[in-house]
């Protein structure tokens, strides 16, 4: 806990770059993460989030820039850095040849931990992951949500100070996602630093104290979810659907309503402090949308504002 005690960042990245040939997957990222913080990288697929995670874990060497994870350079000290990390990859890579509980014990052996520690720890983690009754089951008999929880339990076997979660709930049904979020929230409360990538804004809003919005390998904005929404969006958003043919022509007629209008292929977004008032004004102008919806601004709107594109394609 050296880094935490001194109030130094557990991750410090300056001008981090990763190029594949001419293509820069990560193009000059600079950020710091404090101990105990829950830090997110929000961006669309291909923004360079996973590559950044791999560089933090020392399994991908950076092209340039500096990076320190708990004071160590992961390129030079891969095994040492990873000894304090828990890694939850985007796709589950559980050991299908081993049973559920053995997955935890064997993974702990990879860290060189003794069985006397691992046996009780594995049982404790199975309980945490709500998988105690599956201890001797085969991995391929588990549901998607259970596999995800087992992967997270596995990442905790070495009592890491920092957990790297790459798209932790992508592909899960809503109920499984909420169970998982609850587990992650408990970890955060117990003081584990969480670093997560996601392209789901609700996940970022639920879990992140602070996040960076990443697009094409660059940082577009940084702050807490609430700050970002305040800075880059209005309080409310009015969503109108006129049918795919009418959306573009409707934009001209809506001009002047709210602070800003954004025309998407399937709907028109009107950013306003008061969404209901904006809807009333649109109706007064004789516009009759097929559907209308007033909602609070979200990180999705922040992303749209910053990049001109929506987050989930």
């Amino acid at each position, binding site marked *: 806990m050296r880094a935490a005690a001194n109030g130094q960042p557990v991750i410090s990245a300056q001008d981090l770059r990763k190029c594949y040939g001419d293509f820069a997957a990560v193009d000059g990222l600079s950020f710091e993460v404090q101990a105990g913080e829950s830090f997110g990288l929000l961006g669309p697929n291909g923004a360079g989030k996973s590559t950044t995670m791999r560089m933090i*874990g*020392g*399994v*991908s*060497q950076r092209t340039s820039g500096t990076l*320190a994870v708990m*004071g*160590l*350079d992961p*390129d*030079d*000290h*891969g*095994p*040492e850095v*990873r*000894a304090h*990390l828990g*890694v939850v*990859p985007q*796709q589950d*890579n*559980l*050991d*299908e*040849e*081993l*049973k559920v509980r*053995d997955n935890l014990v*064997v*993974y702990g*052996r*990879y*860290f*060189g931990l003794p069985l006397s520690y691992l046996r009780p720890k594995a049982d404790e983690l199975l309980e945490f992951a709500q998988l105690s009754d599956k201890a001797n089951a085969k991995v391929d008999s588990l549901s998607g949500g259970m596999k995800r929880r087992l992967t997270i339990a596995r990442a905790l076997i*070495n009592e890491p100070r920092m957990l790297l979660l790459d798209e932790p709930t992508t592909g899960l049904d809503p109920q499984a996602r909420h169970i998982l979020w609850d587990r992650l929230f408990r970890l955060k409360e117990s003081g584990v630093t969480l670093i997560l990538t996601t392209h789901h804004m609700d996940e970022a809003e639920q879990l992140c104290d602070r996040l960076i919005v990443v697009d094409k390998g660059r940082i577009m904005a940084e702050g807490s979810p609430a700050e970002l929404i305040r800075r880059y969006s209005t309080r409310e958003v009015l969503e109108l659907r006129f049918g795919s043919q009418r959306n573009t022509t409707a934009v001209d007629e809506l001009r002047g309503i709210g602070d800003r209008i954004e025309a998407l292929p399937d709907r028109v977004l009107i950013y306003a402090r008061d969404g209901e008032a904006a809807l009333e004004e649109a109706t007064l102008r004789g516009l009759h949308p097929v559907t209308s919806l007033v909602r609070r601004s979200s990180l999705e709107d922040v992303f749209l504002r910053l990049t001109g594109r929506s987050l989930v394609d």
Partner: protein
Amino acid sequence: MRRQPATARVFRALYSGNARAVIGRGLLATRSSNWMVMVSGFFEPVLYLLSMGLGLGALVGAVEGPAGQEISYAAYIAPALLAVSAMNGAVYDSTWNVFFKMTFAKLYESMLSTSLGPLDVAIGEIFLALLRGALYATGFTAVMMAMGLATSPWALLLIPAAVLIAFGFASLGMGITSFMKTFQQMDWINFVMLPMFLFSATFYPLDVYPQVVQWIIQALPLWHGVELLRQLSVGVFSPATAVHILYYLVMILVGMVLTTRRLRQLFLS
């Protein structure tokens, strides 16, 4: 941050001195799922020995052994079959098995997100391949002795020699596998192995071939293994024995360097 000398840095990123965790995992996985493959691997050369050695041997009769003495046909092909089985076992473990774990099971990806480095993984996997090779070799040598096909106490050295052969094929095989991307490419390995098995003086002496073909076969690894084990089985040695051993030592070295470099490129680039 203090920078260490370049070689020390590279080594620290590659190796954590914990290959035994990879070995432990392999043994546990074998216990729970792979043991049928293990058993079939033992019977394959035994079946060849029974059908070719005893069956075909009845037609062939006695043949000329490594030192010019007369030996039975079964005694002639038995060490060759042992060399082939050492090759096959090592190649299966280090190619198909590694390919599957690398590409589909993502096993190495998960191992390398822990304290393990690529060298831990390579050493562990190769050790497992050799352990299996040693088990097969012990079993087959016991069968040879029981059938009276190994006439010299030197024959006990067949076991470590078979492991040496397996080591050569395993380390080179793992390096080559790291270049493979699809199952179609994996088939090339069979395309090389089958002719090598049939033509490396396995079932008849090398001198039936024209000189050029002899040179080609002598350049390939299996022939050296067959000759080495054949000499050991009767306890007759020549300067060529040292050449055979040296051939495998070089093969192991080249294979290990290639494998480590490739794992580094694949997983730490």
